[in-house]
């Protein structure tokens, strides 16, 4: 049934996605729905990194909220400073704080170039530091998952505790402008959507290149048998670190673009629950497949909006159920469904042939 092969299929996939994201979606959706889609696409960007780190590298990154939050806060801090204007403090600092000038660690974020670079490089640096400890100590499996989740929780709790400088539970809210553009203007909201869509395609292309490179093959080898890789002369800690750091950078960029799309970043968006939500999308769609992880992330985020509009209380339970069902009965996610069904059909056909043979 494959009409196209290899490279041609890849290009066709990217072209189709581009048409869908840049032409059809803006035509078909209202501004409100397009804004929601922008938000889902940010989740999908995180899922691209999860596909690499978890699907390919076996690292169950249950704490991507940490990196999403670092990117988001880096961006929001700059936008708050810009909104306040030169010499003024961001609104919440005037409200809660006693400070008369910006805290020292806010000041570099006044520079747009620094802030933009920090949205990606800060999460990557933090991941490199954490990862080099974690992987060299050979922490893996469930311990790694719990540790990453604890780090995301710790970051959220720390943010809540520093109300005077981080906005506490409320987060950084009511962001008005994006590098000089008014975010209330629907045209600018659309531009933000296009930037996000372009960034998503870029990250997918980047992850695809990594997955199909020699490094990508080595990463799968580490996932399957870390010890064996070590006996081949590689340091598995370094191999895993690269995937972890790249995934963190992707989550950081997603967080940064989430801020202008939604206008807010708060601890509730980066703690344990959102961190698990990032993973659920990838798990349902298929963690080892880029297309599966991305579509899964978008689909689950969409379902969350649709279902929580109808049944606000039931969503959390439904989400948990979805995760368990996916992991227990379809570990490869929906992306593997075709293969699973094909194998089952082949088995049945083979069994039928054997039965006929025995009867004859």
């Amino acid at each position, binding site marked *: 049934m494959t009409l196209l092969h290899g490279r041609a299929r890849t290009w066709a996939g990217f072209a189709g996605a581009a048409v869908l994201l840049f032409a059809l979606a803006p035509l078909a959706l209202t501004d409100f729905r397009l804004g929601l889609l922008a938000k889902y696409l940010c989740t999908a960007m995180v899922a691209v990194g999860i596909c690499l780190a978890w699907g390919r590298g076996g690292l169950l990154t249950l704490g991507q909220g940490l990196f999403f939050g670092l990117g988001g806060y880096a961006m929001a801090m700059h936008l708050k400073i810009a909104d306040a204007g030169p010499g003024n403090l961001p609104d919440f600092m005037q409200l809660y704080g006693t400070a008369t000038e910006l805290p020292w660690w806010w000041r570099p974020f006044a520079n747009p170039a620094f802030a933009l670079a920090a949205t990606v490089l800060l999460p990557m640096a933090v991941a490199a530091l954490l990862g080099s400890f974690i992987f060299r100590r050979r922490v893996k499996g469930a311990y790694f998952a719990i540790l990453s989740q604890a780090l995301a929780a710790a970051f959220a709790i720390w943010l809540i505790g520093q109300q005077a400088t981080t906005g506490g539970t409320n987060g950084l809210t009511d962001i008005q402008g994006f590098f000089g553009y008014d975010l209330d203007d629907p045209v600018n909201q659309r531009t933000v959507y296009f930037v996000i869509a372009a960034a998503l395609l870029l990250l997918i292309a980047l992850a695809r290149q990594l997955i199909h490179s020699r490094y990508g093959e080595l990463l799968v080898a580490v996932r399957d*048998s870390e010890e064996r890789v070590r*006996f081949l002369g590689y340091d598995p800690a370094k191999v895993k670190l690269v995937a972890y750091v790249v995934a963190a950078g992707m989550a950081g960029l997603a967080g940064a673009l989430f801020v202008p799309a939604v206008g807010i970043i708060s601890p509730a968006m980066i703690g344990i629950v959102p961190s698990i939500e990032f993973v659920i999308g990838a798990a349902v769609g298929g963690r080892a497949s880029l297309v599966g992880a991305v579509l899964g992330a978008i689909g689950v985020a969409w379902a969350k909006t649709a279902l929580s509009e109808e049944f606000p209380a039931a969503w959390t339970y439904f989400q948990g159920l979805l995760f368990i069902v996916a992991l227990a009965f379809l570990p490869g996610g929906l992306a593997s469904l075709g293969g699973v069904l094909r194998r089952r059909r082949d088995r049945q056909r083979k069994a039928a042939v054997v039965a006929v043979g025995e009867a004859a």
Partner: protein
Amino acid sequence: MSEPAGLEIHQLRVSFDGFTAVDGVDLDVRPGDLRFLIGPNGAGKTTLVDAVTGLVKAEGSVRFGGAELLGRSVHRIARSGIGRTFQTATVFEELTVLQNLDIAAGAGRSVWTMLRRRNDVPEPVARALETIGLTKLAGSPAGTLAHGQKQWLEIGMLLVQDVRLLLLDEPVAGMSHDERQATGELLERISAERTVVVIEHDMDFMRSFARSVSVLHAGRLLSEGTVAEVQADPKVQEVYLGHAAAETVTGVAVQEA
């Protein structure tokens, strides 16, 4: 290809929580040897290989090509030219035969090479595929190989790794007679250019292919020499008879499996 190097083990000692698995073993494997390491279960054969490859902590001295190995990390020892296999074949099941070999060949690759696709079959990989007889299966997932083929793939991975010393842990376990014969001939060819140490329980296989034999018992070196010398050693006969008293002394004295 680099010259084969010898392995000099001096007073090697490995203990786990008070139990001494390897108790002061001296072993001198000359470059290009095809050495068999035999002994009853629990003799310390695998532990000795674990110590040489850095998997367990050990005291004493292990020198390879003149350099001390003890205290180095596993992947650094591997890079110095020592490769090993395990009792259960561990290949990367989800990757193809070709990918398995390509990864084994690549520990020294630059970052730039790693980040690009593999567009061709590297020459050493092609040669190894030929040597282990899996050229036709290069594109199959390693998980679908037969047991014997997996063992050969593992040996092939050591070849492309360009190791100077191969440590093989029961390479013919579970193989058919023909597969054993093919494996033995493969090892003979390999040992023309590299040093090979084989842990084995199969005594027929040992008699057919060993160039020299070391017998371990209860963590100590019991006997060493050619196949004939070791078989004639009364100490060896005693140890093996203790495990298989029904066997006759002559000829099949070391028939233990």
